[in-house]
């Protein structure tokens, strides 16, 4: 077995055997999903229910407003003077006093609270009041409920891309782009830092001199980079298999649910991927009822349309590419310093493009074909993340090819550069390294 293979094997096995790898592999997706759902849940629910004491000078809203998960309306003080009620509750937490003025001044409602009740409470009140007043006005104009329901409309835009009329959903693509870009960012950073730590461990342990008396520093660096990269790839593949399993089980469940709630005719319509049939007469009533079914079905449908092979293939390519690029730089950083704390000064410029690309990603998702999106998906230091964000929206083949070629070329350059720093840095002890110093190392014999 060649020496570099031995090094790869050691790096791979010692890492995969660790308990933390197993934990990370299993818990990683759970934590990731947990973060996404957790934040979604946290933003949607409030721990404390806000009590809103209603003072109503119109005498028409008392008892009409409905409680929900955030707001609880209290009608016990409806007809008491607002100043009195305010003074009662002026020191109570989670209590607001809502003063509805006389009919002719209705347009503004005053809400008094000790602490800011938050936007959820305000919007809940605004929404309900708007609805009630709207309905009252419509009633006054003699519109019956049927007409009101008919007026309500919701149109979905179905995106047809290219000659094949591939159906695309921008919202869904955005989520997919966001998630895959974020995962690739996380993977690159996480495993590059592992490489850096590994290099530092060897340097601080002083085992490095023993090893590089047997192998060349470049072999050691590449062995470590490749070994750790394979760990990352293993982890990714396990995740893919796990989520494929979850998806298969989940979609079966979803299908069963749909069969129960839908008749066969609509089912067939959806299967053809055509939301509106040509022979279907335009009936407003049908449009509204169908809409609710449409949503769940649509995600399922787009999941099937998405080119998973392309996305996963590109993910692996850009993960490996971005990882090779950054991990060799991180290896150089690790070799240049003696202590973890010293890494900070070199970490910043190395991670800056990664962080930058996360910011850029957000704007790429809203505008995936802009000039900026194209450029950043070609520039090698941002391309892994930018490209993953763009990919679900589709892009010309030549851009993908150019981006890949540029990435490969810069990997070779970066590895060469990092190798030169690494070689010198490994045996430098007790010296605080500056950028000038690093520059000199590049030209050492």
């Amino acid at each position, binding site marked *: 077995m060649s020496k570099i293979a031995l090094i790869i094997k050691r790096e791979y096995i010692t890492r995969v055997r660790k308990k933390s790898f197993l934990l990370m592999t299993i818990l990683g997706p759970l934590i990731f999903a947990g973060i996404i759902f957790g934040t979604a849940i946290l933003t949607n629910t409030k721990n404390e229910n806000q009590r809103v004491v209603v003072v109503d000078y119109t005498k028409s809203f008392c008892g009409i407003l409905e409680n929900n998960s955030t707001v609880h309306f209290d009608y016990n003080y409806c007809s008491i003077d607002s100043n009195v009620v305010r003074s009662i509750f002026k020191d109570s937490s989670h209590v607001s006093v809502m003063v509805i003025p006389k009919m002719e001044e209705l347009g503004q409602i005053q809400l008094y609270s000790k602490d800011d009740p938050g936007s959820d409470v305000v919007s809940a009140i605004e929404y309900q009041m708007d609805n009630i007043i709207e309905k009252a006005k419509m009633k006054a104009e003699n519109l019956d409920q049927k007409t009101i329901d008919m007026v309500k409309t919701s149109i979905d835009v179905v995106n047809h891309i290219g000659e094949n009329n591939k159906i695309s959903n921008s919202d869904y693509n955005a989520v997919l782009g966001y998630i895959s870009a974020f995962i690739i960012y996380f993977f690159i950073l996480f495993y590059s830092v592992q490489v850096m730590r590994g290099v530092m461990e060897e340097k601080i342990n002083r085992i490095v*001199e*023993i090893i590089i008396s047997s192998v060349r520093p470049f072999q050691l660096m590449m062995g470590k980079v490749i070994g750790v990269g394979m760990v990352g790839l293993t982890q990714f593949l396990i995740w893919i298999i796990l989520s494929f399993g979850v998806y298969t089980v989940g979609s079966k469940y979803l299908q069963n649910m749909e069969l129960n709630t839908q008749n066969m005719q609509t089912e067939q319509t959806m299967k053809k991927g055509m939301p509106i049939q040509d022979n279907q007469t335009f009936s407003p009533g049908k449009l509204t009822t169908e809409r609710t079914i449409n949503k769940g079905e649509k995600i399922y449908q787009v999941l099937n349309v998405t080119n998973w092979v392309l996305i996963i293939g590109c993910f692996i390519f850009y993960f490996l590419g971005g990882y090779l690029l950054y991990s060799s730089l991180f290896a150089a950083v690790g070799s240049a310093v003696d202590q973890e704390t010293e890494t900070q000064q070199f970490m910043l410029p190395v991670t800056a493009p990664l962080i930058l690309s996360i910011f850029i990603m957000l704007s790429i998702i809203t505008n995936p074909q802009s000039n900026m999106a194209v450029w950043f998906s070609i520039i090698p230091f941002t391309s892994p993340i930018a490209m993953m964000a763009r990919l679900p929206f589709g892009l010309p083949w030549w851009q993908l090819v150019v981006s890949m070629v540029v990435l490969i070329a810069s990997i070779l350059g970066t590895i060469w550069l990092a190798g030169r720093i690494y070689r010198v840095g490994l045996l430098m002890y007790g010296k605080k390294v500056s950028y000038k110093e690093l520059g000199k190392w590049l030209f050492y014999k």
Partner: protein
Amino acid sequence: MIRIINQITAPDSGEVFFGDEKITPRHTELIGYLPEERGLYKKMRVGEQAVYLARLKGMEKRDAESKLKDWFKKFEILTWWDKKVEELSKGMQQKVQFIVTVLHQPRLLILDEPFTGFDPINVELIKSELLRMRNEGTTIILSTHNMASVEELCNYITLINQAKTVLEGDVNKLRHRYKEHLWEVKLEGSEELVRASLNHKFELLDYKPFLNMSVAKIKIPENLTPNDLLKALLPICTIIGFCEILPSMGEIFISSVKRTNPVSYNS
């Protein structure tokens, strides 16, 4: 220079030859190197790590394992095989490192301060192994500041001070070259008589009582021989022991460095 031989750094100028061939990375498998600053992977198991390091030196797995077991037995550390390195003390780790360095039977062994961190028993163990390998034909380069071990182990020394060779040659020849004709005489007799009889011709540098006798340190001038000294002493005392004092390598070290670089040593 050690790093240049090990192909870790490139020389600014000059060339290194291994035997008759110019040195190449291929030769690293023929070299065993124990650096001064040395460590092991803390989280790895001892045996596994030793096998890994041996395989990096080009050994086959099975060969490495069986040889390692032999060495571990010899050093009485076979029970450590499955321990993690971080559980071992520094001295224990040093033993493992030493074994790994010599395991692949290198033709050239380079040791940088090999005895630091060892207790006297293990120092003796290592020394005897080194002497055995020397006798079997291994070339050993020992880099050390411990002059006593130099006298004991080395055939040939090179003294380097501030990147310049100050002194080099066969150890025994050097000690003879630097001798100052000092002799140690163990005797029974009175100090006054000894002083009186030596007075003119020999220089009495030191005179100490030792158990029930005395030890005298005497310098013989160049025109006289040890026999002349004996002749002078025989009538007045009983001579129990008589031997020449050769300078230690430590003394030679100090005097040579002082000679070549008086400023830095006087300040």
